[in-house]
């Protein structure tokens, strides 16, 4: 697979001396959905800003589909669509005017069929002649997405796309991301809502204090860092852990009614199987088996917390 985005040793020091990025390396494959996770102030918006041309890098190199963002800025930027974190719209323009303007700005002839497709996909078609000022916040965000897609970019950046967004828009947005993926568009989103990354992304990067501390394929990440907690409800109280269960590293709750263990990684079937077999063989009856998988949220808190 070809790299649509390559970032090498990227640093950013703001004018006030604040170091927002401390040497970030990252490559993104074409067609990938990549989630950049990190707490507020981690440097997500700065990173996107540099790739999109809003912020000047202090040092480092960024190429978009082989085009350097400084030397070949025209080619590089033409491939990128950006939905910014802040809702910035011109209230007096109509929806269609705004979308047409964006496409022109990115150097493409108007394409009414494409405008209609994008606006329909985002449920904006019946509002195309309305002034943006008359729309709700959610609708304005849709307009920003439509503007970002107006020139048919190969990479779409969504900076905190679902912050303060209603359920319906969230659903439509993910639907749209899936459709884009089918067309081979690369989507890079930032979020601090982990469910989003969990639902959508192929790969996840975690950034904290200007450093990319981890980049991994989502399932691998869950396997490596996630854990499963299994609890078994007993029908009769146990006073103590029986000897023959001691090598299975079990916990017995103080009330003596629940056995539990924690397994690292994504898979605990072998261990659970062995345990259940033993319980049956020893005549210990149980009435329930529960397993709870740690979410990316827990992993994330764990990762970021460990660095503090």
């Amino acid at each position, binding site marked *: 697979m070809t790299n649509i985005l390559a970032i090498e040793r990227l640093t950013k020091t*703001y*004018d006030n001396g604040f170091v927002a990025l401390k040497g970030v390396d990252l490559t993104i494959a074409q067609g990938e959905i990549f989630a950049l996770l990190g707490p507020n102030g981690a440097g997500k918006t700065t990173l996107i*800003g540099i790739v*999109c*041309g*809003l*912020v*000047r890098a202090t040092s480092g190199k960024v190429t978009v589909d082989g085009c350097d963002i400084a030397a070949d*800025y*025209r*080619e*590089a*930027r*033409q491939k*990128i669509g*950006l939905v*910014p974190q*802040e809702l*910035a*719209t*011109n209230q*007096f*323009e109509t929806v269609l*005017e705004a979308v*047409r*303007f*964006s*496409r*022109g*700005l*990115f*150097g*493409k*002839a108007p394409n009414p069929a494409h405008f209609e497709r994008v606006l329909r996909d985002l449920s904006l078609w019946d509002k195309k002649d309305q002034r943006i000022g008359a729309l709700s916040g959610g609708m304005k965000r849709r307009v920003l997405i439509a*503007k970002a897609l107006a020139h048919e970019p190969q990479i779409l950046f969504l900076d905190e796309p679902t912050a303060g967004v209603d359920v319906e828009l969230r659903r439509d947005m993910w639907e749209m991301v899936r459709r884009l993926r089918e067309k081979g568009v690369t989507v890079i989103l930032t979020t601090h809502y982990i469910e989003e990354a969990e639902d959508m992304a192929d790969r996840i990067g975690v950034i904290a204090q200007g450093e990319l501390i981890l980049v991994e394929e989502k399932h691998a990440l869950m396997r490596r860092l996630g854990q499963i907690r299994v609890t078994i409800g007993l029908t009769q109280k146990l006073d103590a852990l029986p000897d023959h269960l001691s090598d299975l590293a079990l916990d017995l709750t103080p009330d003596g009614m629940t056995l539990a263990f924690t397994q690292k990684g994504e898979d605990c079937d072998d261990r659970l199987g062995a345990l259940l077999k033993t319980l049956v063989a020893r005549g210990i009856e149980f009435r329930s088996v529960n397993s709870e998988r740690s979410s990316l949220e827990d992993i994330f808190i764990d990762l970021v917390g460990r660095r503090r």
Partner: protein
Amino acid sequence: MNVYAIRAIYINELNRTWRTLYQSIASPVISTALYFVVFGSAIGSRMQAIDGVSYGAFIVPGLILLTVLTESVSNASFGIYLPRFLGTIYELLSAPISATEVIIGFVGAAATKSVILGLIIFATARLFVPFEVVHPVLAFLYLVLLSTTFALFGFILGLWADGFEKLNLIPMMVISPLTFLGGTFYSIDMLPGVWRQIALFNPIVYLIEGFRWTFYDIATLAPVISLALTLSLLAVCFAVVVWIFRTGYRLRN
């Protein structure tokens, strides 16, 4: 050259004008008409001709510039300040466009509007006083050049300003008074000695003199000086804008 981008910016800016048609066109036309009623017809009828040109006709070029210069500055400055204020500037900064293309779009639109305004005021004036233009082509070209120069200056103002007050400050407190005192209503030869010397430090005097020369072929100062001054202003403004884009001043972090 990203022609589509230039066109998009240009059309977008002119659309803004149509949306605020009254403000953009009607109010300067009305105020100019008032000047003609007061200075052209009422007072002008009692004034002597200056260099063989009736007073009503004499003030026409200056009155056109009074509006054109201030409107060029405020239009272009507002055009670029608004996206900065709204945050929509992100789109311009992330687009595959060069500084020159952005300038052509914004300044071109502001200058276009000023030229149209100038022509409307010209037509309005013609309703009040009879006059003929000696060098119509030169007059038009000079109007275009002045509109462009001042729009470019306004563009810089719009990049520099960090509030709406500052946007209004320069056109109202600098351009407008200088134009008023710059020989719109009199020939600088009519000023007593020391005031004439002081007036010569006002660059707008030369611009109005030059513009009036294209109308009536009368000038106390050589038209070439006017042209040279205008071109220098244009070059300085252009250099400043290019510097701003190079360094990202007030645009990029």
